[in-house]
């Protein structure tokens, strides 16, 4: 469904992404992992159309994504790392606004808002202003805003940052449900246990390049350079073995 081919992007002399390629199929979650500054967010931004790649393509069902107004963008939903919501508006008004950007009619919009709020469990709070929401509720509404136009592909950039375990689990349940519905999910995170819990396939990038692309089982097979943690191989130990222990701030 989603095909990323040899994406490259530089900012001045800094090469942020240096030839990233991977594929994502419907009903699957792909975990995109990497240290700070590895190029995860730049990659997601290029897929979402926020940045024009210097080279390479983003294809959906074989069709190349190009331009701001490309109708193919309707098949992608973005859930940014930031809480991209208007605090002064109600949850309903936020969703109605974001849905309007995709040209949904009023009836379609009302139905989509009901569905999205139902998925994230915020139907009862639809008429409350977002500024009255807890951090976890805002995160769930942030997710709902990306679902309104019923995209086939959902790009989730660290969607659980700063939320409590209850809200995190609720979001995981939402993502599991979306996978069951046949959506393709690209999930970036720093939390290895999240990737272990959710991802069908894991892509690790560092210095703008893909250094691993495998299933969890494939990655955690015993390798010569990987130290077991508590007697077993974890994704974290594999990740550290591949990307090193030096700080990346």
């Amino acid at each position, binding site marked *: 469904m989603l095909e990323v081919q040899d994406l490259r992007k530089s900012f001045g002399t800094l090469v942020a992404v240096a030839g990233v390629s991977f594929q994502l199929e419907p009903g699957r979650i792909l975990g995109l992992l990497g240290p700070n500054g590895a190029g995860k*967010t730049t990659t997601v931004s290029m897929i979402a159309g*926020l940045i024009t790649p210097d080279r390479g393509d983003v294809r959906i069902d074989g069709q190349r994504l190009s331009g*701001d107004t490309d109708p193919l*963008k*309707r098949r992608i939903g*973005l859930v940014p790392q*930031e809480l*991209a919501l208007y605090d002064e508006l109600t949850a309903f008004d936020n969703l*109605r606004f974001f849905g309007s*950007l995709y040209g949904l009619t009023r009836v379609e919009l009302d139905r989509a808002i009901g569905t999205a709020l139902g998925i994230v469990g915020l139907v009862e709070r639809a008429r409350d202003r977002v500024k009255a929401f807890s951090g976890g509720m805002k995160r769930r509404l942030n997710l709902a805003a990306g679902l309104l136009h019923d995209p086939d592909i959902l790009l989730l950039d660290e969607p659980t940052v700063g939320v409590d375990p209850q809200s995190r689990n609720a979001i995981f349940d939402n993502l599991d449900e979306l996978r069951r519905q046949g959506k393709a999910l690209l999930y970036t995170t720093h939390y290895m246990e999240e990737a272990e819990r959710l991802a069908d396939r894991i892509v690790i990038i560092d210095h703008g390049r893909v250094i691993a692309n495998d299933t969890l089982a494939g990655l955690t097979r015993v390798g010569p350079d990987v130290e077991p943690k508590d007697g077993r191989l974890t994704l974290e130990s594999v990740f550290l073995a591949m990307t090193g222990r030096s700080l990346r701030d």
Partner: protein
Amino acid sequence: MVPTAFAALIAKDLKLFLSDRRAVILAFAMPVAIGSFFGMLFPGSRSTETQSRIPILVVDLDTSDISRAMTAALASDKNLSSESTSIEQARDRVRRGNAAVGIVIPQGFGDAAGRAFFSGGEKPQLQLLYDPSRGMELAMVRGLITQHVMESVSREVFTGERGRKVIDDTIRSLDSAAMPDDQKRLLRDMLESVQRFNAAGNTASTSRTPGITLPYDVREEAMTARQSTNYNGFAHSFAGMGLQFMLMGAINFAIEILVERQRGLWKRLRSAPISKLTLLGSKVGSGTVIGTLVMLVSFGFAILVWGVRIEGSVAGFIGVTIASAVMAASYGLLIAALGKTPNAARGASVLATLLMVMLGGAWVPTFVFPAWLQRVTLIMPTRWAVDGFDAMTWRGFGLSAALLPILVLLGFAAVFWLLALARFRWEEV
């Protein structure tokens, strides 16, 4: 451009604006309050009852007929609020700012002034105690004193008792005066004519001549929309303040764009299938709607409360309002394009806006500026907006007079828009 997306973007901005109580108060209440204040400061032609008089103090140490006449003349002047007092009181009250000027008439002033009037002898000195922060009032008082002293002294020397004595003394002392003989002869002839005039019965007890007076009267006609229409200073002040807060609103708008960017909202907008033109166009659209509302509400208040009237073309007034709002919104977009962070953008743009507003004549009319500055201010869009509003309100011109300001304002808007488009940072990481 997706029409529903464009409308949704504008509706969202308006909803956000109306939900921010502080922004609404700033946009609607402040121009009304400050416009009213400036309107009261620069009212234009008002009746003398409501006109503020310059407070002066008079210290008469002479108590001659001339000094009493001067004191009475100053007291009856419609431009002055005069009060007699002691010299100590005068010094103290001027220093405290309770009076603009204290006039001290020294002992012997009347006699000396009478003598100096004809023979050019040593002139007596009037002492002016003044508040240095009120230079404009001092200049005005100085002019009025000249008028009243000349009237009082000339009336007394031509027809008063003391004046007769002065004329007699002057004729006696003419031989020893330091002036050419032919001038002495002419002056003697003139003074003897005055003696004969007085002897013929024009004395203080009968009909006194007014002395030397201003040899003309003035008929004033304010060149406003119609002969019967007075200039209303509130029309100018509300145009200026409406414009100022339109531009201040544009700064807030720019900062909101930068905050949207900081909070990741711009990512969400950019990920939707809508063009850059739609995104930026909607910002100008919503800014124009808000700016137009600000100006219409301000003028609505001025019309209802201060009696401002659109004496010229209503269509022209609306045209200038919308063109000003488009210019202000485009200016806001340019600030957003140039600003890196909300705080940095706020500091620089407030300074630039205040300069534009001040030089555009929004605070005080541009005719008080030096001539060279008046010419320079034509490069300010605010100058064209203020001139356009003046033309459509109290000057009472027709639609044709609004066309040039409208075109120039739209020209400025186009320049701001193109610069913003060129400098806007589109890439979101």
